[in-house]
């Protein structure tokens, strides 16, 4: 029986990993699994056979994840709303500022800087959402609806960031041809720009797969490091990458790595009916 309990616990962990379901849903599915096992054992199956058949009847975790994702209605989560608001305000400020200086620096240059700055900013905002997610989970697990809202916001922001970054890079190529006589020079700023684009696209692909999103979203924190290096890469044409800034970049990078590590902490159980029952139910007797 202890071995059976371990196997059920392992099944539950695997299911949680794949589906990202909260503890209440897992409790319910585990309850069903136990009912099925009990019934199958009564009909003469061994416990091992009963467990194998019961898990098969419950369905593949990936299929379950897809079904549960359809059910969850998006629910408001404050960090998502704040990030959306900040994104709109920053977009207005950046576009307004660049329009004001477009006469001095040229429309092409302003458009290039604006697209890249907005693209990078949105990538950072996705990273900040990921930080909110990993730092919230150890204290309060997100509901399925909140998780869906977060996934949707992360996907949309990241898609916009990728499009803007790509547009910014292409505009930069045109500007470089006009002013430097070549489209591309593999300067750190250009190379890191490609790095941000590749990072954004990779994350989008992972999110589009719609499985393991609770593991994919924390990856966006690492994107903050890529963006920070891209933004402050030191090349002659961009004079703001000074040596002290490199130290700040390192500190920032280490901080982001630590926050990414927080993402591996287990989520706190939601205080719902299942927990109340769990405290009152005595340990299960062997069959």
């Amino acid at each position, binding site marked *: 029986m202890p071995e059976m309990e371990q196997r059920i616990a392992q099944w539950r962990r695997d299911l949680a990993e794949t589906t990202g379901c909260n503890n209440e849903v897992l409790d319910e599915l585990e*309850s069903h699994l136990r009912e099925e096992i009990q019934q199958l054992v009564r009909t003469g199956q061994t416990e091992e056979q009963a467990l194998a058949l019961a898990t098969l009847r419950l369905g593949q975790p990936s299929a*379950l994840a897809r*079904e549960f994702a359809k*059910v969850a209605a998006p629910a408001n989560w404050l960090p998502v709303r704040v990030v959306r608001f900040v994104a709109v305000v920053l977009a207005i400020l950046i576009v307004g500022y660049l329009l004001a200086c477009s006469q001095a620096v040229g429309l092409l240059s302003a458009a290039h800087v604006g697209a890249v700055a907005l693209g990078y900013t949105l990538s950072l905002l996705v990273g900040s959402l990921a930080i909110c997610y990993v730092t919230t989970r150890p204290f309060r697990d997100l509901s399925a609806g909140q998780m869906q809202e977060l996934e949707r916001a992360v996907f949309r922001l990241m898609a916009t960031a990728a499009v803007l970054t790509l547009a910014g890079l292409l505009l930069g190529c045109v500007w470089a041809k006009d002013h430097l006589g070549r489209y591309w020079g593999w300067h750190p700023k250009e190379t890191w720009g490609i790095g941000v684009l590749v990072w954004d696209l990779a994350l989008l692909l992972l999110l589009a797969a719609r499985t393991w999103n609770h593991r994919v979203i924390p990856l966006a924190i690492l994107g903050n490091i890529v963006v920070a290096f891209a933004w402050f890469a030191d090349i002659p044409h961009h004079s703001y990458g000074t040596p002290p800034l490199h130290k700040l970049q390192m500190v920032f990078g280490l901080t982001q790595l630590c926050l990414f590590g927080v993402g591996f902490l287990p989520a706190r159980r939601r205080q719902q009916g299942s927990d109340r029952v769990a405290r009152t139910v005595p340990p*299960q*007797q062997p069959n």
Partner: protein
Amino acid sequence: MVFMKIRKDLVAASAVPLVLSILEEGESYGYALIQRVRALSQGDMEWTDGMLYPVLHRLEAQGYIRSRWGESEAGRKRKYYVLKTEGRKALAEQKEQWRVVLSALNQLWGVQHA
């Protein structure tokens, strides 16, 4: 006896009226609901067990049913579902719609009403 399995799309379409109808008989829980459907269809209507729960959760989110955690006879925790007034109204609509469909099919196929 002809061995027949109901197609997935038909199983999916009938899931809500079946769940609501069973809950109309009284409070129940996931495992029992599946067993009841299996018994009613004499095993021809096979649900992937885990797929029932998203349906139950959606019905709960729509306000048709409500749930509570309780205990089984063996002291194991178990989530029970019960039909709400809104659910009864939704079920009445479903019944009307299914009756129209059944009536149309019966006329076409010449099946006698029970």
